[in-house]
C-alpha cells in the first residue's frame, strides 16, 4: 500500500502506539444526539443536499405551500453568507432559520445542534411541534456527504441544467443518499440530459436509491415529492408509537 510522508523517516528509537479514532467520531456523536432529540419530539428530519442553484429553496417554497395545511414544517438553511434563502422561505410562512457558516462549505452536526439549542431558548418557536424539519445544506456535492446531521432522510437534488454526469463524479454523495430528485425537468426538451442515464449511473453507485422528478416552477412532481415525505413521516410516527 503506498504510504506518503511529509518528512524523512523517524530517527532513533520510537514507539508506535495504536489510536484507531474515526475522524468523524465527534460529528457522529452529535448527530446521534440530534437523532434522539428528533425521535423524542416526533420530528422527521431531512438533509437536503445539492450543487448551488439546483433548486433546493424553490422546491421548499413549493413544499411549504403544498403541506402547510397538513403538517408543521420548519427549515434550517446553511449558507456561507447572507440570510436570503431563509427570507424567501419566511415569506411563505415557514419558520426558517439561517445557519451562516462563514465560509465553511458544509454543515456539521454541531452547527445544527447549536441552532436547535438557540431555537429551544426562543419562546416564539416550539421545535417539539414541528413534524418536518428540513436542513437545507450548503450547495456542494463533496463535503456534505461526509457529515451525518442526524437526519432520517438524505435527499440530493440534481438539476437538468447541471448535466447528467454528476453521480459518477460525486459518488459519495449518491452513495450516502436515500433519494435523488431530478429538478428543473420542465427544461428537458432544451437540454442534452437523460433522466434514464442519470438514474442508471446513480443506481450503479447506490442500487437502493429512490429517484423522483420535479419541475418546481410548474409544480410538476411536487405532489409526488410531498407524498414521498408524508409516507415516511407517517412510517416514522408509527415506528415511534410502537417503540413506546
Amino acid at each position: 500500500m503506498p504510504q506518503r510522508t511529509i518528512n524523512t523517516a523517524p530517527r532513533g528509537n520510537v514507539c508506535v502506539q495504536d489510536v484507531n479514532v474515526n475522524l468523524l467520531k465527534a460529528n457522529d456523536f452529535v448527530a446521534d444526539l440530534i437523532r434522539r432529540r428528533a425521535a423524542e419530539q416526533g420530528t422527521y428530519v431531512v438533509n437536503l443536499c445539492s450543487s448551488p442553484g439546483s433548486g433546493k429553496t424553490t422546491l421548499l417554497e413549493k413544499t411549504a405551500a403544498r403541506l402547510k395545511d397538513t403538517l408543521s414544517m420548519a427549515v434550517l438553511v446553511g449558507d456561507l453568507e447572507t440570510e436570503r434563502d431563509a427570507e424567501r422561505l419566511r415569506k411563505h410562512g415557514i419558520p426558517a432559520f439561517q445557519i451562516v457558516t462563514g465560509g465553511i462549505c458544509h454543515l456539521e452536526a454541531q452547527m445544527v445542534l447549536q441552532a436547535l439549542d438557540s431555537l429551544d431558548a426562543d419562546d416564539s418557536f416550539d421545535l417539539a411541534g414541528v413534524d418536518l424539519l428540513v436542513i437545507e445544506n450548503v450547495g456542494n456535492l463533496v463535503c456534505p456527504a461526509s457529515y451525518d446531521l442526524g437526519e432520517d432522510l438524505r435527499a440530493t437534488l440534481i438539476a437538468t441544467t447541471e448535466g447528467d454526469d454528476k453521480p459518477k463524479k460525486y459518488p459519495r454523495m449518491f452513495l450516502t443518499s436515500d433519494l435523488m430528485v431530478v429538478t428543473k425537468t420542465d427544461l428537458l426538451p432544451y437540454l442534452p440530459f437523460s433522466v434514464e442515464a442519470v438514474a442508471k449511473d446513480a443506481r450503479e453507485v447506490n442500487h437502493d436509491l429512490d429517484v423522483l422528478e420535479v419541475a418546481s416552477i410548474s409544480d410538476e412532481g411536487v405532489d409526488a415529492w410531498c407524498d414521498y415525505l408524508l409516507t415516511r413521516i407517517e412510517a416514522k410516527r408509527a415506528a415511534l408509537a410502537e417503540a413506546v
Partner: protein
Amino acid sequence: MHEVSLVRSVIASLDDALDAEERAALEEIRLKVGTLSGVEPMLLETAYGFVVQGTPYEGVRLAITSVPALVRCGTCATEFTPVRQRFVCPACGTPSNDVLAGDELLIEQVVLADSVSES
C-alpha cells in the same frame, strides 16, 4: 473543502487521546484515508501544514495511507474494487453497497519518541 475541519478534528482527537508527555514525544501521526471518503490526501497534507503552524503539533509528521475501496457481493461473496464507481459485482452482476473498506477516515497510529516508553 473540508480538509481544514478534518485536520482540526485530528488535533482535537489527539489532544484527547494522548497525555501531555505523549504529546511532547509525538513524532508522527498515521492516518488511513479511504478512496471513498471524499478526502484528497494531498489537500489534507497541505491543510495540516497550515493548521499546525504555531501549535505544539508543528514539526510532527503526517503520514497518510490511502485505502482502496473494497465491496462484498451479497449474492456470491466476491470481494471487488468498483471500477468507474460501478458498485456491481463483476462475477455475478448483483449490485452491492456492502463497503468493507475504502470509506475510512481514521487516525490509525501515532509514533512517539522512545524516551516515553523507557521513562
